[in-house]
């Protein structure tokens, strides 16, 4: 699993990247009440908005950490947005992207680097 400074995580299986937000991000957001996941077939570049996650108080963008085409979206979050708080780094994933450039994945932080980064916040 790799991480961004915006607190997204990416898990890679072959050329499919699963994307979610970290436990730290979920804790900061508070109770998630709505999640907007992307349409299948949408292409995103690294840094583009991929999903929107909303707490009672505010809406927050989730950015694509990596470029690719959306091949699956976690539509179960529509009825159960609280999954993002319960299991942010597994069942609370937002979308799966078919990626072309594994180099983008390799360039992201590993868990040790992410945890060091959290220590600076």
């Amino acid at each position: 699993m790799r991480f961004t400074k915006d607190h997204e995580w990416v898990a890679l299986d072959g050329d499919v990247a699963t994307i979610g937000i970290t436990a730290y991000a979920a804790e900061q957001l508070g109770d998630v009440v709505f999640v907007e996941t992307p349409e299948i077939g949408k292409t995103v570049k690294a840094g583009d908005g991929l999903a929107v996650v909303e707490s009672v108080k505010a809406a927050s963008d989730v950015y694509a950490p990596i470029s690719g085409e959306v091949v699956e979206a976690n539509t179960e979050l529509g009825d159960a947005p609280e999954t993002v708080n319960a299991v942010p780094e597994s069942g609370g994933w937002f979308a799966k992207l078919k990626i072309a450039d594994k180099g983008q994945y390799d360039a992201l932080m590993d868990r040790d680097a992410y945890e060091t980064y959290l220590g600076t916040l």
Partner: protein
Amino acid sequence: MSDEVLKTTPLAAAHVEAGARMVPFAGYSMPVQYKDGVLKEHLWTREHAGLFDVSHMGQARLRGVSPLSAFEEITPGDFIGLKPGKQRYSVLLNKKGGVIDDLMAARPDDDGLFVVVNGACKDNDFKVIDNELAGQVTIERLENRALLAIQGPEAAAVIGRHLPAALRMVFMDSRAMPGFGTNILISRSGYTGEDGYEISVPNHQAQAIWNLLLEDERVRPIGLGARDSLRLEAGLPLYGHDVDETVSPIEADLAFAVSVKRRDARDFPGASRIAKELAEGPSRKRVGLKVLEGAPAREGAEIADGSGAVVGVVTSGGFSPSLGYPIAMGFVPPALAALGTQLKVIVRGKPQAAEVVAMPFVPTRYVRKI
């Protein structure tokens, strides 16, 4: 704002100790939420009792030969008729009938008028009052006092243990009385739609009283995040968002704040506009919206009619923890303000179905009779 040194309330240390996340608000460092988070804090207040630090709000005494009649020169309320022991909601008006701020004004005792105004507006409000009523009233800002609000169905039972006399008050009663080992000003009111009290206490006693109230297991500290979602459900406007200097009380659906007697007298700022809007209807009206699908529509989201034409804007909105769906308030032309009107709210470019519904969204539980 970020370069400004934030002021603190006397409860700042207590908030941090309770695990609050502090944010800048109205020039103060204030708790937006505690450990439970906005959703749970909101629901706790609706079921039990929530304790709020609202010490950022502006408290003042207005004194003079006849402060009540003087106050009528800048508000549309019946203050000459305000009886001792009562509080009234009102609005400070500019010459064009726009709202400078909304406020509570009370007669807890015989010492003039006790007013509480919004924290973000207070410096300007007191300047306006001072300018407009120069020679008629003197303003004493009560910066030596904190303000606590306790709200929820169990608030009265909690307060009654310490202050039995408070149980003999009804909604919008106001009293000066000894309590909590000091002299307090207390009103049975608040801004959540729940029964409860607002209690003005000396700064140096605030933390002890806060801690004492929190010893009761029915009471939890509640941040500004839940205060906002609670007032939204109660259909209460938030100054600076739902109401501003361009909005009249009639447009804002606050006609109840314009005294019937004074509508005829037209003796308040902007009276001609307000009388015209009362007679012919305003050009826009604040309405409640139930968002029927999709994401919460928040401040700034456009409102469209069935044909897709933009007809208004959301001024505050979010997810309703009590109802489990998104709600909003915003301004639309009167022709589209009738209950049941089907509209759209545009969220991130997507039109979502919404319906005009009655406010409050969640029934209020003010105790009007005992």
